[in-house]
């Protein structure tokens, strides 16, 4: 039917069909190979590029976890800021003066300073040099508009740490800082790089690993000079850090802080600590230490002058005095001496001891604190409530130093409590061994008496003192205090609960501890000693302390700290061990007419327990010559 000659050549059709099938098969095989083998020559060759280009892996910093208070209020967060930097390699030297001048005008920085910063920069000319941090967004927009006239000038986005409550809780939260060379060499294997921030104090430091998250990795191609030519893709997405939830409610922190702030202002001593803990589990309720500092200054790059000011302050605002400083614990340490004597049965509960004006030991007179004595025999508990020095001396003589020191250690003195905050120190519990290695002799008898009083070589942190009374309250368990309640994932789900860790047990009989709780109540109830403290409508216990230190003045008097530490029980049944609030108040160098720590405690309890009446006594915070106890 067709006029055209058709030559159908079957072989060609066969070849065409086979070719089609073969090609489809080969493409399918190749697809499977790529999918399964991850392959192809192209992938293997990718690491050996022309012109000395290399593919390197770069770390992507993960967003840092938040720090929240117990009720979920944000204590540390990340905010967006902008920084301006110059990449010298992109800035031709011929126009540098003009660019620096223009940039200086925009940023209101002296152009000479910018030039100096550029000239001082070491490293590759492609490495950016930081010119300004925390630049206002409007200024950065202006720079971006002028970018044609500002070659090499870059605006970068930078997350920064912000602490909404600043100095109220900076001692606990801490701050982050740029990693330094030493830290970097130790941590580079953990994925840190020189631009990273790292926790430098407080929770920011102790929970660095959780807060930091897991860095991501991206592949970038760099040329011979180390300049990034192109981003090749993210091989590992960063995982945001976990959020840290504190045991502290910021409202409770505010109460402790306010009481302390009032106290140091009234006494004029500048330095002090108010801390409380739940004796049942070691959860810190509040932890205030004065003087304090604004950790936001560190977050935005603290100036050298400001930092020097903090460092030169002799009251050490950067130090959390609750854990990082130790002081003679004074009469608060009598908890150790009295419990030790009762436990070792060197004195009976109902035994009465003489109270002369002084005890003569080794030809030296050791006076009662009132230099008169109490004129009658007192039981140990009564002696404790009067804070009698002479009775304490008698107990120390019966105990001897090594037994006393062992009791000190049993109550947690002499080594760190193990709180989850950095830079905690352990204090000193002297015994003959300690004396031989430290002062190359044995302790004199007089020094033993001083040790029983929490003076002499005795040193303790406020936290240790509080922890000993917390152990008294809970029946003898030394919990590791902790400021962190739990860790939460970035999506808010619970990641880890910090379970209380038992550091040790005091190891004394229940009867001994019950007697000491009763004695600690007697201290508060003894109006001759603590005036109206016993009128506070709480089952309050405590032990005051006045600890001399330093150098005598012209009248031969020593400056002194004031202490009080104890707990509040739900009932006045002192055989029970269910108190949920233990505290310590420490007033450094208060030198007040009355025990300044008691006045601060009254204010703290009024705020904490919402008491209507103010039990503070006017005038007790005036400078005096109070050699109480």
């Amino acid at each position: 039917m067709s006029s055209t000659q058709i030559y159908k050549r079957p072989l060609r059709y066969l070849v065409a069909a086979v070719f089609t099938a073969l090609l489809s098969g080969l493409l399918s095989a190749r697809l499977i190979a790529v999918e399964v083998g991850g392959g192809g020559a192209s992938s293997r060759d990718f690491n050996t590029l022309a012109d000395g280009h290399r593919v390197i892996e770069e770390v992507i910093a993960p967003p840092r976890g938040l720090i929240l208070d117990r009720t979920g209020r944000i204590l540390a967060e990340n905010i967006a800021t902008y920084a301006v930097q110059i990449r010298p390699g992109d800035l031709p030297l011929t126009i540098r003066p003009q660019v620096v001048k223009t940039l200086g005008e925009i940023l209101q920085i002296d152009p000479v300073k910018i030039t100096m910063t550029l000239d001082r920069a070491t490293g590759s000319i492609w490495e950016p040099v930081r010119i300004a941090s925390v630049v206002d967004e409007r200024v950065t927009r202006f720079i971006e508009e002028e970018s044609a006239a500002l070659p090499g000038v870059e605006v970068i986005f930078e997350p920064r740490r912000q602490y909404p409550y600043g100095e109220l809780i900076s001692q606990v939260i801490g701050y982050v800082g740029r990693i330094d060379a030493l830290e970097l060499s130790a941590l580079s294997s953990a994925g840190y790089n020189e631009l990273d921030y790292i926790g430098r104090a407080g929770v920011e430091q102790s929970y660095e690993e959780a807060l930091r998250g897991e860095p991501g990795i991206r592949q970038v191609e760099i040329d011979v000079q180390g300049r990034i030519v192109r981003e090749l893709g993210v091989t590992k997405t960063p995982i945001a850090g976990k959020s840290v939830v504190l045991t502290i409610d910021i409202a409770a922190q505010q109460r402790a802080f306010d009481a302390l702030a009032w106290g140091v202002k009234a006494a004029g001593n500048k330095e002090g600590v108010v801390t409380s803990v739940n004796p049942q589990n070691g959860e810190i309720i509040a932890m205030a230490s004065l003087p304090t500092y604004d950790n936001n200054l560190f977050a935005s790059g603290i100036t050298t002058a400001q930092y020097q000011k903090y460092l030169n302050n002799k009251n050490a605002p950067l130090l959390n005095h609750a854990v990082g400083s130790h002081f003679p614990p004074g009469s608060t340490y009598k908890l150790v001496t009295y419990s030790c004597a009762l436990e070792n049965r060197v004195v009976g509960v109902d035994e009465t001891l003489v109270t002369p004006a002084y005890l003569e030991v080794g030809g030296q007179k050791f006076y009662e604190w009132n230099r008169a004595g109490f004129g009658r025999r007192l039981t140990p508990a009564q002696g404790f409530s009067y804070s009698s020095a002479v009775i304490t001396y008698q107990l120390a003589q019966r105990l001897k130093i090594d037994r006393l020191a062992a009791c000190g250690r049993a109550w947690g003195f002499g080594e760190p409590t193990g709180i989850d905050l950095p830079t905690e120190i352990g204090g000193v519990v002297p015994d003959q061994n300690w004396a031989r290695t430290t002062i190359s002799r044995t302790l004199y008898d007089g020094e033993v008496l001083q040790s029983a009083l929490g003076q002499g070589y005795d040193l303790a942190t406020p936290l240790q003192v509080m922890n000993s009374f917390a152990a008294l309250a809970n029946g003898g368990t030394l919990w590791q205090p902790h400021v962190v309640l739990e860790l939460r994932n970035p999506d808010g789900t619970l990641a880890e609960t910090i379970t209380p860790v038992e550091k040790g047990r005091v190891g004394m009989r229940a009867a001994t501890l019950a007697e000491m709780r009763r004695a600690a109540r007697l201290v508060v109830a003894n109006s001759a000693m603590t005036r109206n403290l016993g009128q506070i409508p709480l089952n309050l216990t405590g032990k005051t302390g006045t600890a001399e230190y330093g150098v005598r003045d012209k009248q031969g008097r020593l400056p002194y700290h004031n202490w009080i530490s104890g707990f509040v029980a739900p009932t006045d049944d002192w055989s029970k061990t269910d108190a949920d609030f233990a505290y310590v108040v420490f007033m450094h160098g208060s030198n007040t007419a009355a025990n300044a720590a008691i006045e601060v405690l009254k204010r703290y309890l009024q705020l904490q327990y919402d008491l209507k009446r103010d039990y503070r006594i006017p005038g007790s915070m005036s400078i005096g010559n109070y050699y109480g106890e």
Partner: protein
Amino acid sequence: MGLGSPITRGPFGAAGWVGSIVRRMDWLSTAAIGLLMICGLGMAWINARSYGQELFDLSSIFLRSIIWLSLSVATFSIVTAINWRWIRTFAWPLYGANLLLLIATLIFGQDSGGNSRAIAVFGIAIQSSEIAKILTLVALATVLTRESAEADTLSNTLLGSLVVAPPFALVAIQPDAGTALIIAAALFGGLLLSGAATRWIAGLAGLGVLLLPLIWAFLIADYQKERLIAFIDPNADPAGPKYQLEQALTAIRSGGLFGIGFDGTGGINPLPVQESDFVFAALVRSFGLVGGLLVIGLIGLLVARLIWHAWESPDSFGTVLGGGLAAIILFQGGVNIAMNLGAAPITGIPLPFVSYGGASAISLAFGLGLVQSHRVHQGGGA
């Protein structure tokens, strides 16, 4: 002869006419075309989302794909229904018009991705080279079916080459080496299956090889050379094609067996030109190995049916058309997929119906519709 009686408007009227068309159509190839179009639509949806486009904005790839593919379906249906002999009478005017369009493109051509391939007609950028490959094939089939033609003569081969040469040259100097090669492949496929003598086909191929240095020197743009070098030399500059390829391979690997599906594509970084050149990689990322194998299978099935049509055809027109189209689709599909898999150099050759592109889809629909028409309207002589 072959497939029964000529279609007439019989006792059942229009319904019977449609029915007889439907009965005579090749439903395997039609199904393959339809499924490829659905893949194209799905990819347009994913790409529009990946580029962050409003799906039903007139500028969105998705809405445009719907329009273009609808027009393609319409073209396919109409051409199938019309007797191919009638269309053939327009072969030369269409061929001439296409040459004019190609010349116009060279003169007024818009820059679309670095060269002058498209020309604006009524505000729509037309890729004249995509149209050229089909209209050239139709002209080729016409000239090889002329009254006095004898398939294995030198004159027949020369005549066919002469018809193909002008559009080939005009496309090549755009420069669009890929499409020019497709036109050459169409000639090759048509001649091969219509029975041209082996020696003349070999001679033609030899001529092509001899011309290669000239083509390299004058007709291949620098960026195309770069792509070829990138394919051959593993140490080539990683800035360009190499990087695109690496991204495509990464995307393919991320697809796994079933892909990340429709949902996962919203926030994903688009691949370079993932709506056309790298559509296959994007498809495998979304639908996995299964989706990739399906597309390869569909292309293979379509090509096989076209070869079968050429074999069954009672006349040279059907043989040349079937063979040429088989060559075009096999070449396009093979090169595009191989390129996505790192097994061929990067060229701007679209994957039939899956890649976004109006001119490509409509002209392919025209050619494939003509093949259907050739099946449907059998009898009555060529």
